[in-house]
């Protein structure tokens, strides 16, 4: 089915990629590349250009300018060849609930042109990989959420794609199942399969090798999660414990700190150089019953929000 071996080099190369709809620029000259065997997280709020980018990468939407190569294929010239070479798994992935596990895989295998002995072998391999061999005759609707997720992954890897797009792959799954699902993804990556993950959830984003944030059609940050947290946060996060959070928040805002939020009984304030302002803040917050404060590492969500504001 795959007519030529996938050439070496990055799995995705995007250069100056642009999409305009009339006067509106949805994607504005973005550049990035994704290495083979990398788990790449692509993050952005709704309306950021994230979905438009993915549609161009899948060959479903022609770029207005710039170029993108996916597995060596030019998305502008050979768009029709991409979809069948990549895998796609979404939380809304339509498995047929009334079919058995094996029947669902047969259905998707045939859709990708697999037949006969090859189909049976690939189905067997995919079931073994995701650990669902014993469930092959079970009706899909009766599987627990974590197992359905694994079945969706099995369907996405049947045709042995070198690149898989995953949309919120473990949304709503329990932590134990999520952990074992990510182990499957790390195994695939170790065998040089490239995984392109989109998600709104920082729990998932943190597990990617590398991340890119898109906002208003532009890439605003790129790097490993740890690196992004260390380098892309202009301010520091100060965690404050006090008896009267409402009074404390009002005092902080009056002192010019705009980014102040409640976390349970604690307050998080974000601003540059807070470590140097501790004595001043401690005096300011004393009337609100200050019990303690410390600089804490920013969460990925803190960094994300700081970079889109």
């Amino acid at each position: 089915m795959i007519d030529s071996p996938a050439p070496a080099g990055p799995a995705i190369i995007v250069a100056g990629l642009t999409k305009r709809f009339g006067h509106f620029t949805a994607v504005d000259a973005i550049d990035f590349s994704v290495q083979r065997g990398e788990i790449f997280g692509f993050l952005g709020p709704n309306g950021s250009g994230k979905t438009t980018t993915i549609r161009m990468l899948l060959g479903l939407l022609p770029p207005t300018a710039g170029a993108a190569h996916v597995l060596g294929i030019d998305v502008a010239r050979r768009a029709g060849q991409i979809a069948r070479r990549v895998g796609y798994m979404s939380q809304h992935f339509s498995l047929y609930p009334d079919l058995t596990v094996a029947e669902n895989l047969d259905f998707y295998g045939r859709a990708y042109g697999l037949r006969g002995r090859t189909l049976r072998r690939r189905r067997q391999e995919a079931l073994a990989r995701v650990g669902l061999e014993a469930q092959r005759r079970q009706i899909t609707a009766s599987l627990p959420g974590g197992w359905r997720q694994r079945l969706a992954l099995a369907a996405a890897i049947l045709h042995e794609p070198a690149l898989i797009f995953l949309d919120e792959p473990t949304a709503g799954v329990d932590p134990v199942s999520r952990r074992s699902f990510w182990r499957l993804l790390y195994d695939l990556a170790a065998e040089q399969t490239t995984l392109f993950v989109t998600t709104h959830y920082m729990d998932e984003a943190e597990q990617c090798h590398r991340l890119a944030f898109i906002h208003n059609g532009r890439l605003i940050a790129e790097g490993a999660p740890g690196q992004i947290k260390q380098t892309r946060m202009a301010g520091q996060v100060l965690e404050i414990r006090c008896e009267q959070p409402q009074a404390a928040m009002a005092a902080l805002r009056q002192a010019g700190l705009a980014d102040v939020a409640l976390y349970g009984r604690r307050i998080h304030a974000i601003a540059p150089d807070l470590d140097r302002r501790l004595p001043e803040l401690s005096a300011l917050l004393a009337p609100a019953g200050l019990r303690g404060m410390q600089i804490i590492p920013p969460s990925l969500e803190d960094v994300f929000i700081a970079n889109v504001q």
Partner: protein
Amino acid sequence: MSTLSAHHLSRRFGPVAAVTDLDLTLAGGETFGLIGPDGAGKTTTLRMLAAVLRPTRGRAEVAGCDIVRQPERVRRQIGYMPQQFSLYGDLSVLENLQFFADIFGVRGTAARQRIDRLLQFARLQSFIHRPAGQLSGGMKKKLALACALIHQPPLLLLDEPTNGVDPISRREFWEILGELRLAGVTILITTPYMDEAERCDRVGLMHQGRLIRQDAPAALRQLAPGHMFALYTPDLLAAAALAPGLPGHLSHQIYGDRLHLFLADPLPPQVIAAYFSGHGLRLRQVLPDTPRLEEAFIYLMSTPQP
């Protein structure tokens, strides 16, 4: 003062035990997060507490009213935002709020004042004439919350209100909840996401219909056994293979660009670094780390509860 108390609350659907023996007490003004995966029983619990689903066993009082004997009174005392909150897509933002005001008997000047305040509160003033069906996901959730607040309930039951919402709208939604909390409103909120639990006063972990533990997020995080370290290296697979040889090794897990290590003893990071570099591993950093709620949850799920 307790605004909500449930005792042995249980619900079966035929052979399926959706919720079993749930005991829960909420103090006034508290924000309590019910955390758990899809199918854990969170929605069934909320539906019983909102008096829209009768329990099979057990009882609960919400705002001083019995959920089985006084369902109408319960519904007037609470703001309930189910997962599929029915906004009228063809009606504008303003018309939706007016509609909910009518349902709850809020009329005239009082209705106009409250609607104005809620629009401001939910940051929807500039969208009052837009049909609800044409709002973004985050704005729909905020409108649904505003509708649930129209009769000024002292207690809010919110079922996965941030599901499918992007991080920016999600943070804004939590800021609004923070303001409600400061105004003394008691909030019971469900979410499948551990990071949202950090914003609650207390958290209850639900698994297979049971509330397996409830406590402050900081206390729950400490349940994960051992001491946690994050190891940054370009050779994650090699690091994972070497990890079991560390003294006091409990478990390890590849996590994005790092390896999470759980050790029985608080080894100095330099000692851990020396172990890995001694085996030829290229190391960037070894840092002590704080276990997240996820680790505590995994520990609780794998340990039989008393």
